[in-house]
């Protein structure tokens, strides 16, 4: 009933316009007399309605319709109108889009991020689709969509991000300073991480993260990994190699501590293998006791320095303090323990090598002898039982 009465009004208003003022259109009121119904659609189903109060409160609310819809100058206007060109005013943003991953205007119109063209708000307004706390949801409309991710060969990053420490800070704590998508990727001129100009290109990542984590980045740049990256060695890890790009966890959390050592082991294979032989690893792999030493507990996390550096926690002079952080009562003799001893290497660890050799020989000889002994015995006993037909199992036993 309500629909009918609204339509009656609309038709009546149009009739009045037709009767009185065929020709020039000027004020918002002229257009809104037809387009004011928010649910208004044209013959092909496109929304042509405007939520007038919302539009008035939006950032473009003071503009006249013709300022954007420049081709419509009089009434009646053609059924098909040319699309609005936002870059008439927003030239800088439009220029940024050129060459970016979202350059295709057909696939990524401005409205895909900024929302309905008639209800655009400034980015510091919580109603805005690009308000910091709303950005992940806006980007996630595409980047949280499996089909979309597959189509473009991209990971489905939204769920990873939203469960990360950044995502929690943003969605649960409501922190404006929490990193959202555009903090790292930029907004209009978003480039692939393979592009050396991109803030997410490998060598640019420390600087990008350093925008917020300035102290950590300074530490990192002073360590072996930072220096290697600065020298152009792309094999060296940057922030995201250890922390991941989107699924970043609180580093002290159990989950991260559990998954972290293999990350270092990706490159430091020999050290990882010898670490695996130690009690630190054996116990650390089982979970539920995440305090056991992981790589960075001894080596430091960001400012990793060679043992020869007096500032390094694994420098001889600092070992008692470093080990003492977990092992109360650690002394000079205690820290001679080698956390990466290789029992298979006779030159490096002769004593350990021979201990292991002795133990292995003991194991092999005892087990081999008794295995043969037992098998022969079994066969002979069974043979006797069958021959004498005295097989009674455990009856007499």
């Amino acid at each position, binding site marked *: 009933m309500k629909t009918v009465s609204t339509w009656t009004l609309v038709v009546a208003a149009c009739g009045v316009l037709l009767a009185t003022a065929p020709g020039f259109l000027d004020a918002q009121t002229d257009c809104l007399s037809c387009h004011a119904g928010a649910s208004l659609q044209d013959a092909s189903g496109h929304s042509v309605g405007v939520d007038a109060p919302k539009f008035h409160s939006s950032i473009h609310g003071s503009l006249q319709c013709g300022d954007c819809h420049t081709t419509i100058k009089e009434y009646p206007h053609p059924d098909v109108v040319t699309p609005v060109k936002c870059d008439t005013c927003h030239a800088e943003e439009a220029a940024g889009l050129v060459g970016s991953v979202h350059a295709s205007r057909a696939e990524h119109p401005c409205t895909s991020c900024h929302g309905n063209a008639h209800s655009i708000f400034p980015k510091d307004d919580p109603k805005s689709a690009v308000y910091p706390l709303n950005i992940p949801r806006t980007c996630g409309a595409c980047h949280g969509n499996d089909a979309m991710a597959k189509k473009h060969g991209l990971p489905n990053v939204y769920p990873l991000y939203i469960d990360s420490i950044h995502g929690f800070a943003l969605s649960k704590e409501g922190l404006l300073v929490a990193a959202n998508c555009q903090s790292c990727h930029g907004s209009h001129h978003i480039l692939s991480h393979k592009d050396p100009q991109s803030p997410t290109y490998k060598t640019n990542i420390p600087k990008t993260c350093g925008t917020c984590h300035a102290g950590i980045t300074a530490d990192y740049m002073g360590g072996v990994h930072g220096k290697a990256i600065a020298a152009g060695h792309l094999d060296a890890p940057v922030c995201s190699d250890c922390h991941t790009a989107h699924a970043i966890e609180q580093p002290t959390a159990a989950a991260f501590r559990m998954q972290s050592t293999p990350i270092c082991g990706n490159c430091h294979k020999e050290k990882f293998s010898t670490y695996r032989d130690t009690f630190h690893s054996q116990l650390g792999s089982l*979970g539920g006791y995440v305090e056991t030493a992981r790589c960075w507990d001894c080596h430091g996390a960001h400012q990793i320095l060679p043992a020869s550096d007096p500032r390094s926690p694994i420098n001889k002079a600092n070992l008692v303090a470093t080990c003492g952080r977990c*092992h109360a009562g650690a002394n000079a003799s205690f*820290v*001679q323990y080698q956390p990466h001893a290789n029992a298979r290497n006779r030159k490096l*660890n002769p004593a350990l090598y021979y201990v*292991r050799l002795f133990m292995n020989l003991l194991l092999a000889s005892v087990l081999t002898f*008794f295995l043969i002994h037992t098998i022969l015995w079994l066969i002979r006993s069974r043979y006797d*039982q069958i021959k004498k037909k005295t097989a009674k199992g*455990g009856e007499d036993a």
Partner: protein
Amino acid sequence: MPDLEQAAEAGRELKPAKGRYFMRFTREQRYLHAVLFTTFLGLAATGLPMRFSQSFWARQFASGVGGFGTIIFFHKLFAVALTVAFLIHLKVILQRGLVNREKGIFWGATSMVANWKDVKDLVAHLRWMVGLGPKPQFERYAYWEKFDYWAVFWGMIVIGFSGYAMWFAPFFARFLPGWALNAVLVVHSEEGLLAILFIFSIHFVNTHLRPDSFPMDMVIFTGVESEEEFKSKRTQEYERVAREGKLETRIAEAPATWLVNFSRAVGFTAILIGLVLLALTLSAYFRP
């Protein structure tokens, strides 16, 4: 063996059984074995996940029981219990041998100490197995039983020392060289592995699963064995005791049905746990 005679007398009543039963192990010895295998199973079950912490079952087990903290807590608990049992055993042996001057503790036919006869028995036994000679006759403890005893004895000293050295590493570091702290883990885990592999395969078969005892030798649980078994398994001991005219003093009551059933349940559970642990160990050891 006055202790066996006492134990036999204590449990003997005027009740004619089908056959005669003889006392082999005292209550204390059976309890020692019970403590030994209980703590050993516990130590193996908690030690193996640490030794093979990369295997899928280790993590499953660890997360099932509440993580590494629980595992090491019970590992230490069993270790302390076993240490106490070991020290009590040591005290009893020294008391009987040195203080009470009891014969046959450190030397002789009833001693656990190896002698020349054991070497001859081993050779003769092996010859019998391949059909080169008659079956040797054994005394109170056969050579493989003595090996079992000393393997456990040596194992407890080695595993115990290396274990406590890790538990109290800063203290042991005061008088051990640095490399020893690395070595103790190698020694502890290898010796532990040897013990596990040995007990769960060789001891199980030699003592319980071989055709003469299959499926389980109950004597360590009930303390008594039938005359027939005594005579066939430990012929020399039987003949010696008979010669000494002390056979009567060793006669014991037939084991109560409940004790046999209870022992079977406990024993089979222990063997089952052991075999499962053995399978897990082998699966982790030979992991591709």
